[in-house]
């Protein structure tokens, strides 16, 4: 144990020094993924849950990462430092602090562009969350270019955030929504998809990774088929940008969306990547400061993208936090994270498969580290609550994806989702909790 601590301490020092200077250093040889060291970067993982006078708490086994990620010290410190030392409003100050904050905030836009391999920082629109990013596309591009007789293609895998904005617009415009089905494993039916595309189709809006089944969709193929018909493609990357490298140029996305808080960054910030030519065709989203070139009562002109879509004071502190989160994730390496998370997913899947009465919802070969399941005779709500008493935090319910749950014929599921700090022991703790709950209800 003392040895492990010493080792942890050493690697931690190495890690923090190269993460803060990563841009100035030659690439280091890849280190083995040291999850114990990574865990020390997350203050919340040191706490106990269900602690009360007279009762010992339980270590937190946090397996609800698809809902939101915990925050590393680097993010917490960056946001604190911003508020303590480097804070003023952006884009409008002549004074020193405003300039400094503007530079730091705009540097984050550049970081996001690199993170997605976008051609330029001008492709990056900053929103409040992923939901707003989708609503932004619906309210601007959608309201301008969609009309009665058109078709929008969604999939059965979608989160409500990529269904309801289109339904709201549909009520206004009267276009048709078509839905790509999936098979028993949760894989999209690409033949059916190809069959849905036609001259009436104006937009394909599909998740890059399901928050229930974990299915990673073949984004490049989806875009290729759509572009063959001149159709735009939007990907909801809320579950993928955090789990794997994403290259918006390689998949040829027209829009790509993710959110800060699932990437171990703060809440209150989301990202919309847009193809430049498409963003330039889009009218403003909300009106206000920062998005205008000139205002008069005779007429107002708007700034070019991305600022045209960013009315009002942006999420400045959150932006700084997201920048730190991206640095942090990149310092570990997204491929290394994906590899680690897959080992957790495999372990948990193997353990759960061995438990009689467990049915796993979503068995696609290419999955984000998300494991939905139901247990014969035991409602997910009971399972989740009892597991929580053991310190195992999972999500239960319909996961804002009711059509998908209906597709699998279940009212609710339990969902464990893994993050970069989870361990094999925690994957085992999940399975042990399921076994204990089964025993409880026997």
């Amino acid at each position, binding site marked *: 144990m003392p040895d492990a601590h010493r080792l942890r301490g050493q690697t931690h020092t190495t890690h923090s020094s190269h993460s803060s200077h990563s841009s100035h250093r030659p690439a280091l040889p890849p280190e083995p993924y040291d999850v114990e060291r990574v865990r020390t970067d997350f203050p919340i993982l040191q706490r106990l849950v*269900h602690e009360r006078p007279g*009762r010992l708490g339980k270590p937190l086994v946090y397996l609800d990462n698809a809902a939101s990620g915990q925050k590393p010290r680097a993010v917490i410190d960056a946001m604190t430092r911003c508020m303590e030392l480097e804070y003023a409003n952006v884009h409008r100050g002549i004074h020193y602090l405003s300039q400094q904050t503007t530079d730091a905030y705009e540097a984050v836009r550049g970081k996001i562009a690199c993170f997605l391999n976008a051609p330029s920082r001008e492709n990056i629109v900053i929103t409040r969350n992923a939901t707003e990013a989708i609503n932004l596309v619906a309210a601007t591009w959608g309201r301008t270019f969609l009309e009665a007789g058109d078709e929008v293609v969604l999939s059965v895998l979608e989160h409500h955030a990529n269904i309801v904005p289109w339904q709201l617009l549909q009520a206004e415009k009267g276009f048709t929504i078509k839905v790509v089905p999936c098979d028993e494993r949760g894989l999209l039916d690409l033949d059916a998809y190809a069959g849905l595309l036609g001259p009436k189709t104006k937009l394909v809006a599909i998740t890059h990774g399901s928050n229930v089944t974990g299915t990673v969709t073949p984004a490049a193929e989806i875009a290729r088929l759509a572009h063959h018909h001149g159709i735009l493609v939007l990907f909801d990357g809320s579950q993928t940008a955090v789990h794997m490298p994403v290259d918006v140029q390689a998949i040829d996305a027209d829009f790509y969306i993710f959110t800060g808080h699932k990437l171990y960054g703060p809440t209150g910030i989301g990202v919309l990547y847009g193809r430049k030519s498409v963003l330039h065709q889009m009218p403003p989203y909300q009106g206000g400061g920062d998005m205008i070139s000139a205002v008069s009562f005779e007429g107002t002109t708007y700034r070019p993208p991305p600022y045209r879509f960013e009315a009002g004071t942006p999420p400045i502190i959150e932006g700084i936090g997201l920048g730190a989160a991206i640095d942090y994730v990149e310092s570990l390496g997204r491929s290394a994270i994906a590899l680690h998370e897959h080992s957790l997913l495999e372990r948990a899947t193997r353990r759960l498969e061995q438990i009689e009465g467990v049915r796993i919802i979503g068995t696609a070969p290419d999955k984000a580290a998300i494991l939905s399941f139901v247990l014969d*005779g*035991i*409602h*997910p*709500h*009971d399972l989740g*609550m*009892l597991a929580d*008493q*053991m310190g195992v935090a999972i999500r*239960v*319910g*319909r996961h804002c994806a*009711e059509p998908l*749950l209906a597709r699998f014929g*279940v*009212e*609710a599921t339990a969902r464990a989702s893994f993050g970069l700090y989870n361990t094999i022991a925690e994957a085992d703790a999940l399975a042990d909790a399921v076994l*204990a709950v089964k*025993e*409880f*209800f026997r």
Partner: protein
Amino acid sequence: MLNDQFGDLRDLYQEVILDHGKHPRNHRHPPDANREARGDNPLCGDRITVYLTLGEDGVIRDVAFEGRGCAISTASASLMTEVIRGKTEPDARALFECFHDLCTKDDAEIDAHGPVDEDALDRLRVLSGVREFPVRVKCATLAWHTLSAALAGAGKISTES
């Protein structure tokens, strides 16, 4: 060992609840039902339908339910069907009010609701553990809200509305 593992949840999941959760009573669709309502708790995915056979004298002749939710909501529905049969609509509503207090308030705070069937209330007391777990109150009261909708002829309720 299990008691320790699941801490206070033993108080919530008492044997009676586990029994009614696993083997719900009156889990059927009576052919002569003349009132029904659907209850939905979208947060956790509980869905039940409550059926009533209301006599012309205003007495609930039969009450049953279909659908499954968590152990708490199923047990609550099952217990409800047992204590409601033979009651008039006002008696049933008075019992619901008392039960609702039981699920949400400390004993000291519970106001008198006029005369209710104390034996029935005693049977329902087994569910009062939910008051320590606010997220589960909706589970325990879903069947009763649905019963209330059926009595009112409302047809459908959701805990989110």
